[in-house]
């Protein structure tokens, strides 16, 4: 009894199940990473849009046109957009490095000023990793148009018209701004590849290749081509299978009047 009271005092009400879920997820990721390190390779279903990135960078090299990677309009500390921005920035780094290694210029932009610093660091790092650190200069590859959704949209459209990229990757957090930027991309004949959570309908209309929802997070791991990091995608799947199972059992039990699972999840 005393122990329960202490735990109740220690853990905030209504968040115990969430904590257990988080710890279990952490263990799953760490375990999958170690299994991958031990040599296990998983069969991963192909993500068409991810495969298209490599091919399209090659096409840009042939045409002599740059690549534009845009992570969109969120900040790093937003609870709804932060993760998508990070996934977009990971893709930016890999694309910039791959592009630089075959002589293609990669530029980027963002709406939130926080992201400028991250993008500058990523460009600096990617060019160094590609063996071309001398190409980097602050403000050369990263565009900022002030901190507003549509000043970003107009600025990004202007950037597309200016640079005429052969490939545009929309990877991060977006809203209706992608309609303006996507259409401008179509006008300069760019291949458009997109991945996001909330604004997928708009990207579906504007992009040639699409990563729907969570595919973007899988892509941010897969694009690194690091088998150990890729291993963490397996853990992502285990968590989803568990969530689906809990949801399905919860639904069946709830249908016959047993609300146990529903209640436990709210503890």
């Amino acid at each position, binding site marked *: 009894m005393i122990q329960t009271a202490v735990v109740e005092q220690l853990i905030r009400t209504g968040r115990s199940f969430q904590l257990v879920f988080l710890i279990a997820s952490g263990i799953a990721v760490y375990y999958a990473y170690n299994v991958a390190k031990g040599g296990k390779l998983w069969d991963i*279903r192909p993500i068409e849009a991810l495969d298209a990135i490599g091919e399209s960078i090659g096409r840009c090299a042939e045409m002599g046109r740059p690549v534009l990677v845009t992570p969109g309009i969120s900040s790093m500390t937003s609870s709804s957009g932060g993760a998508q921005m*990070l996934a977009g920035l990971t893709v930016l780094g890999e694309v910039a490095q791959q592009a630089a290694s075959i002589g293609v210029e990669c530029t980027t932009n963002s709406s939130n000023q926080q992201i400028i610093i991250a993008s500058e660091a990523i460009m600096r790092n990617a060019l160094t990793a590609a063996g071309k650190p001398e190409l980097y200069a602050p*403000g050369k590859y990263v565009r900022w148009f*002030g901190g507003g959704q549509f000043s970003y949209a*107009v600025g990004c459209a202007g950037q597309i018209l200016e640079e005429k990229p052969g490939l545009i990757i929309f990877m991060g957090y977006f809203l209706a701004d992608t309609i303006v930027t996507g259409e401008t991309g179509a006008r300069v004949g760019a291949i458009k590849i997109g991945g996001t959570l909330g604004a997928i309908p708009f990207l*579906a209309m504007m992009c040639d290749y699409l990563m729907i929802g*969570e595919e973007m997070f*899988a892509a941010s791991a897969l694009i690194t081509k690091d088998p150990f990091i890729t291993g963490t995608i397996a853990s992502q799947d285990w968590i989803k299978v568990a969530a689906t199972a809990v949801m399905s059992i919860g639904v069946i039990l*709830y249908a016959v009047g047993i609300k146990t699972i529903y209640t436990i999840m709210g503890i």
Partner: protein
Amino acid sequence: MISQDPWVWISAILTIFSFTLLYGDNKFFRFAQYTYTAVVVGHSVVVGVQTLQGRFSPLISGQKPMLLISLILGLMVLFVVWRPYAWIASIPYAVIIGVGTGLMMRATLQTDVIGSIRAVIAETGKIFIGSPYDQFGYLIRVTFTIGTMFYFLFTVFVKGTGSKPVSYLRDFGKYALLIYLGLSLGNSAMQYSGLGASAINRLLRQWLGLGG
């Protein structure tokens, strides 16, 4: 009657310049584009200066000496534009990434994951009440949500046992997602159509004095 107000004229000219993007790249659009950027940047600086004043005044008045750490960390990010010492900016940025990640994880887990799963379970109860129209709706909601989960499996049931039936579920999920995309997209047409009306009506009414 056409407006006499110079600000209405500036507003109308900028609107038209902005709309020339529809025609293609041109100098008028460039003018509007750079005006937009400059005003937003200028406004951000005005707001930013006020914010900094408000935030660091307790340091200057000696009320909160701990703010010195924030000030130093803040000044460190400015090094990002100085190539040889740009790495200095990455230290304060680690704080942003760390706190941002923690905040994102706790909110996402509570609302997006656990909250949504609980909502699906609770809706099961409604399958058996209300009109057949509503009941069918709730049934669709629950089955579509669970079915679509299978689309997002990348490593399990890809090959071997269970892969065949799961591939059907994955296909089901794919089409459910496409229907969702189409419906959301189509529904937003109404709002954007109205916003088109508000932009063009400002020109017609305020500037040219036409229409109702």
